[in-house]
């Protein structure tokens, strides 16, 4: 049905797809699995005409096709359901479905005809969607079915689903899989992008595993198992090693009890987690991205509206559950955010100005607590020292942060946060988009901070990284802590299974 041949795609310096070959047989459900950033979505977006490949061919029904826009893909019978739904919430289901392929004439939109056609399709696949309802009033699961109908209405024979279950509750997932099976019975072909191995095993006929932009394996689902897939997914050619002495954990610095963070969509967030971080230890949180890590760290840093935060957080015995970000910082909580462009830096500000973000209002940035004038010279001097100590290149405090590479931007943030002499460091994805040299540097710095008696809570989507750095490793899945392992002894398969929600089946 669909075949990608030697597809290569670069985004700037990043090789997102490196000679990717995927073959999807008609009438099957084909899973593409891999970690975040493995290149799964890119490959499928190329097939749908959202991106164009730098080289390689797309074959549909055995013929090489030129797919430049989604329009081309639609014409060839390819539909795609994006991870973030492409639905207009203020319009009805029918309006959303027919948009761009309207029935009736230019002068009159035949919504009645559309509604009956949609109802027929909906019945055929047992989707139970009301064409007259407003999309904004539907549940996420129903919205997803609208997306499916959109593709079906355009007579798609191949449906590409990008992380379709990420937003669904377990009950909805089961329902959704039944719909997919019905589609397969009706002769449709389905490609499902996911990183949840339990789902792969439950639904797919074939699996393609991707890692670092390359296809690392293709197997029949019936002939494989979770352990094998996990190994393929997370395995690395070179194992990352961090030299570190054993932790000498001291007093409890951070204590989190019955902690929940609600999110606007209702799904996701953090659910009732309880844990501690002691002085002088690194506690890692491993999990597939989007399982509550972001909310956990942001809430602990005081960046989530108080009404969404429940439970109790104590810092060295003091309640900081609802404290403001500034108060937390003043009591010694540093934070290296997961998205340095969104949170961590003012890209148009120079490095000196970035070096005081968060501490710009108090000495030494200003002369006294009540001071108003910035001590520009002092800031500059401190920034220069920071740049030297953390090896930020180019070493010029006058450059805007935008001019630096990801690794050097990150080193600046780390320098700034270390300057705080924190009691607790919250750190998320410390080495994302950072070159190898900088990764090692950052890891050494984190271990050094730990050894100086700071408590570190580390979140990373890189399993390699958390296992190498953490002294204790918590596993998060669907916002809950589903296990704790010793990173020195646990295998990647074991952790990978817990991360992907496969732990329970195995334990039983």
């Amino acid at each position: 049905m669909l075949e990608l041949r030697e597809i290569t795609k670069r985004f700037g310096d990043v090789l997102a797809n490196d000679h990717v070959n995927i073959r999807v047989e008609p009438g099957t459900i084909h899973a593409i699995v891999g970690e975040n950033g493995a290149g799964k979505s890119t490959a499928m977006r190329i097939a749908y005409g959202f991106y164009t490949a730098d080289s390689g061919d797309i074959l549909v029904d055995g013929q090489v096709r030129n797919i430049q826009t989604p329009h081309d893909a639609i014409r060839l019978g390819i539909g795609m359901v994006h991870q973030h739904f492409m639905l207009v919430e203020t319009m009805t289901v029918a309006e959303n479905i027919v948009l761009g392929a309207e029935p009736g004439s230019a002068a009159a939109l035949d919504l009645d005809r559309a509604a009956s056609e949609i109802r027929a399709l909906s019945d055929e696949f047992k989707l139970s969607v009301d064409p007259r309802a407003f999309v904004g009033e539907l549940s996420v699961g129903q919205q997803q079915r609208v997306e499916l109908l959109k593709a079906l209405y355009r007579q798609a024979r191949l449906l590409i689903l990008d992380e379709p279950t990420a937003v669904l509750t377990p009950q909805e997932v089961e329902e959704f899989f039944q719909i997919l099976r019905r589609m397969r019975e009706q002769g449709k072909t389905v490609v499902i992008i996911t990183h949840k191995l339990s789902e792969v095993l439950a639904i797919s006929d074939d699996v393609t595993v991707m890692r670092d932009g390359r296809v690392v394996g293709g197997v029949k689902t019936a002939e494989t198992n979770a352990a094998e897939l996990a190994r393929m997914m997370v395995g690395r050619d070179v194992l990352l090693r961090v030299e570190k002495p054993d932790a000498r954990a001291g007093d409890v610095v951070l204590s989190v009890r019955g902690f929940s963070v609600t999110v606007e969509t209702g799904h996701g967030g953090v659910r009732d987690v309880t844990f501690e971080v002691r002085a002088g230890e690194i506690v890692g949180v491993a999990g597939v991205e989007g399982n509550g890590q972001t909310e956990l760290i942001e809430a602990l840093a005081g960046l989530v509206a108080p009404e969404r935060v429940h439970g109790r957080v104590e810092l060295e015995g003091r309640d900081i559950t609802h404290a403001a970000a500034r108060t937390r910082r003043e009591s010694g909580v540093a934070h290296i955010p997961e998205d340095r462009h969104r949170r961590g830096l003012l890209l148009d500000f120079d490095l000196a100005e970035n070096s005081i973000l968060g501490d710009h209002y108090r000495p030494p940035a200003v002369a006294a607590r009540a001071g108003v004038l910035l001590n520009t010279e002092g800031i500059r001097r401190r920034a220069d020292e920071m740049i030297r100590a953390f090896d930020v290149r180019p070493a010029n405090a006058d450059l805007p942060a935008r001019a630096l590479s990801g690794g050097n931007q990150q080193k600046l943030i780390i320098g700034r946060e270390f300057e705080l002499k924190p009691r607790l460091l919250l750190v998320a994805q410390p080495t994302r988009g950072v070159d190898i040299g900088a990764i090692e540097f950052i890891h050494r710095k984190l271990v050094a901070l730990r050894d100086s008696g700071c408590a570190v809570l580390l979140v990373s989507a890189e399993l390699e990284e958390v296992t190498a750095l953490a002294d204790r490793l918590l596993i998060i899945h669907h916002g809950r802590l589903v296990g704790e392992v010793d990173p020195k002894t646990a295998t990647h398969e074991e952790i990978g299974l817990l991360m992907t929600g496969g732990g329970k089946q195995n334990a039983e």
Partner: protein
Amino acid sequence: MSDISIATLLFFLASTVRQATPLLLAAMGGLYSERAGVINIALEGLMLAGAFTAAAVTHYVGNPFVGLLAGVVAGMAVAAIHAVACIKFKADQVVSGTAINILMIGVPAVVSGAVFLSSGSTPQIPRENLIPWTPVVIAFLLVPVTWYVLYRTPFGLRLRAVGEHPEAADAAGVNVNRMRYAAVLLSGALAGIAGAYLSTGQSSLFTRNMASGRGFIALAALIFGKWRPVQTMLACLLFGFTDALATQLQGVKLSGDEEIPVQFIHMLPYVLTIVVLAGFVGHSRAPRALGIPYVKER
């Protein structure tokens, strides 16, 4: 009720409708543009373009309908500047609109200075060459037409989608920028009619800055009417009513020597808009992609 008061009432009603007409035309224009996601604070300038062109052309040709058509073309031409700046060059839509407004204070003045040797006005148009009612009819017909176009045609469906969620429209195969061009040009055409009405309907010549804030009131009516045709019309009628009332009460003395301060009546539309925008009276939700240029991720 005496005959005089009935006559007064009728006169007052007619006055309300006449005051509401340019607001309604411009607001409907703004509705198309903003529902497609392009902020149009240039309505004032577009009206001025239409007003000046219609008056000048009517003066030369002697046919107000040709003048009206010319006003429409002028409105579209100036709207095209806004569209190109905002859509092609991703200029800030508010800044571009402000520039258009300033431009259209200047251009008619310079041109009339050169052509009519006046400081910003056109010669008087004889009474028989005025169109006092045609634009009124057009304006009120536009409301059901706009409603139909918006909710019952593929064009309207795409327009709304483009203003709410351009990525979704794009993914469904709709050309986002083309829709936006069409919408902004349409707003220019309608604001052009509004302007033509000012100079060749309500009065008989173009005078400097004659829109005198009506473009902004139209914008206020659009927000007040929650970007919906019928509600917007009601808002225009309300604002037309305050206008008519202010005109009526101008110089009227209360007991003693106190005049009624009409300034407070004039203020009403603006204060109401601020109140509505703050969410005190219902909630006015703008099209979600309003003001954001569509940049396709590649």
